[in-house]
């Protein structure tokens, strides 16, 4: 870094245009940070009064707009279950695809390029379209057909459920896992693989015993990022599993569930008295943000440790 970078204002001389440019771009940066601070600050300040142990640990009654009985335990449970089930599906597929791309595929071959284009496109599909896909494919196609073949009375699989919401989210977060895993795999020096192969290990042995264990922190980071992305998503689960109200916690994968993000939407738009609901609303937002940010923080710490360990390694 040269000296100029440490003092952006002093290095511009007397050029007013340059000074203005630095001021404007600096203002844009500050604006983003200020807005972020306002959002987080207002959530904490307005959310804390209604935030209590009872709030996060009890099941609410039907009228969850009332400050005295509002609670979010079923939503926390619902959101947790749906992201955990999602992880079970997305991790193996995402990791194996990344292994294919880094270890087996020839870089630049037409097939690899199509796969990469597919991953990029998957990452850009609107979340509501994933919701439609979940409804059209998982519920109306797979679910309804399962019902037909199982021959049970009434819809069992062909209706919104935890499993369908989780699968929809797994499709949505697949690119996150693939990209993170690929990065982790690429960060491993080729020397490590070559040493393993030179000692007589086969390619599969090298991947299973050398490459993947070394990439584990990065792979876990990908998983956590996928979870934190999915935890706050509402649009994909609107038609695939989220319930407005349930008296009980979900027990089977074919049950519907209450969800933190969806509950925030309900509180914000369907309250009979928004003034009265605002503290509950902010407290629920606080719970969701605590959940996603703590997951993000874990991912950032794991990544930092991994980088440090790697730097120490060679």
């Amino acid at each position, binding site marked *: 870094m040269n000296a*100029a*970078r440490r003092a*952006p204002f002093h*290095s511009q*001389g007397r*050029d007013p245009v*340059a000074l203005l440019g*630095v001021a404007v*771009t*600096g203002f*844009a*940066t500050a604006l*983003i*940070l200020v807005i*972020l601070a*306002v*959002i*987080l600050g*207002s959530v904490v300040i307005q959310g804390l009064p209604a935030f209590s142990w009872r709030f996060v640990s009890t099941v609410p009654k039907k009228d969850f707009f009332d400050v005295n009985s509002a609670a979010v335990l079923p939503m926390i449970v619902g959101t947790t279950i749906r992201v955990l089930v999602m992880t079970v599906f997305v991790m193996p597929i995402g990791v*194996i*695809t990344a292994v*294919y791309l880094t*270890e*087996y*595929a*020839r870089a630049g071959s037409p097939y690899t390029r199509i*796969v990469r284009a*597919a*991953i*990029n*496109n*998957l990452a*850009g*599909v*609107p979340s509501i*379209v*994933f919701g*439609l896909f979940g409804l*059209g494919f998982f519920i*109306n196609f797979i679910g309804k057909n399962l019902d037909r073949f199982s021959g049970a009375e009434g819809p069992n699989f062909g209706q919104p459920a935890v499993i369908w919401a989780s699968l929809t989210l797994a499709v949505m977060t697949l690119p996150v896992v693939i990209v993170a895993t690929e990065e982790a795999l*690429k960060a491993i020096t080729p020397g490590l*693989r070559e040493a393993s*192969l030179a000692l007589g290990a*086969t*390619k*599969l042995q090298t991947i299973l015993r050398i490459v993947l264990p070394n990439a584990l922190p990065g792979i876990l980071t990908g998983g956590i990022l996928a979870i*934190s992305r999915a935890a*706050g*998503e*509402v*649009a994909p689960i609107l*038609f695939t599993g989220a319930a407005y109200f349930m008296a009980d916690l979900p027990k089977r994968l074919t049950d519907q569930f209450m969800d933190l*993000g*969806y509950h*925030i939407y309900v509180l*914000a738009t369907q309250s009979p008295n928004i003034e009265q609901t605002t503290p509950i609303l902010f407290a629920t*937002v606080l719970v*969701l943000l605590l959940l*996603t*940010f703590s997951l993000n923080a874990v991912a950032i710490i794991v990544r930092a440790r991994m980088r440090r360990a790697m730097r120490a390694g060679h």
Partner: protein
Amino acid sequence: MGLKRGHQARPVELLAEILIFTVSLSTIALILLIFVFVGREAIPVLLGKTNSALIQPVIPAANLDQLQPAEVREYLGLTAQQFQEMDRETLVALMEAREETSNDIPESFRNDPDAQANTTQFRYLFRPHQWTGYDRPEYIWQPVGTIHKYNLMPLIVGSLKVTLIGLLFAVPVSLGAAIYVSQLASPRVREWVKPGIELLAGIPSVVMGVFALLLLASLLQKIFGYQFRLNAFVAGIALGLTAVPMIFSIAEDALTSVPRSYTQAALALGASQWQASWQVVLPAALPGVFAATVLGFGRCIGETMVVLIASGNASTMSWSVFDSTRSLTATIAAEMAEAVSGGHHYRILFLLGTLLFAVTFVTNFVGDLIIHRLKGRLEGRG
């Protein structure tokens, strides 16, 4: 990293490789499945097979025997599967029910030309129509009611309006921040800003919607003094905020991938740090900025929760920024629950989804292509 398979390739190795290859197909398969299964529900609309007219031709149940099976199936709107499972009596009952519904239509609609119109035809979907009781042709989205009005233009305009406001806010702010962070700021500032942006990216869109609903809406109304508290402007700004992290990181990535030698050459020739960034680095990275805008467009037009909560949800045709509005995404989210599965409303909502998928498919493709080319050029490949 194309290492060869171990020199003693055993069957297990080959099997594993085939398995791994098969799993990698899943990404391509998923894109195709999304296209097929979202598109599939919309196909009847595209082919003109749906009919939303209130008054439909009635065939008396007594005439069942004179009809071909295929005609009966089409008349009753059954799938081949359903049709096979039905016996004659069920078919008669269905036809009688059909007759009855037709007889129940209120007298006031019997002579209304709109009641005979199939409103899922393209001219009703995209062109203005003079409905009974209106004094000029208008674009109207009113899917619930006796006569279903499915004009998509108010929603398309709503989506574009909100997206453009979002981009007009997000692109300058993100680009400014990207220039500052990558070119001008000290490393210490950068260490503060980058996690901040990551934090912003971690805020779920439903939370951004709540922020817009409760704080931003009141603040902006106080400043600009417009009539409706929730409108396209509020939703657009909040939408822009959700797109800032993505546009910032793509732009910042493009700016930092410009070789240091460009800046150093400019500085050696006597340019100030700002001049080097503005006149040398930025032009070199401009395709990346353009790609960030294109991808940001795809991100904004596909965002649901912010618009659903903060735009006021009025599906009126208006180009005014300060009117309440509604986007394609918000319409799907708000109305799917009440749409009958397999009905025309349901199919039209899937048509909106297909439209969104097609638009984002194109923007993603174009955006990635530009970034790929830019990286190649800056790294001296081609």
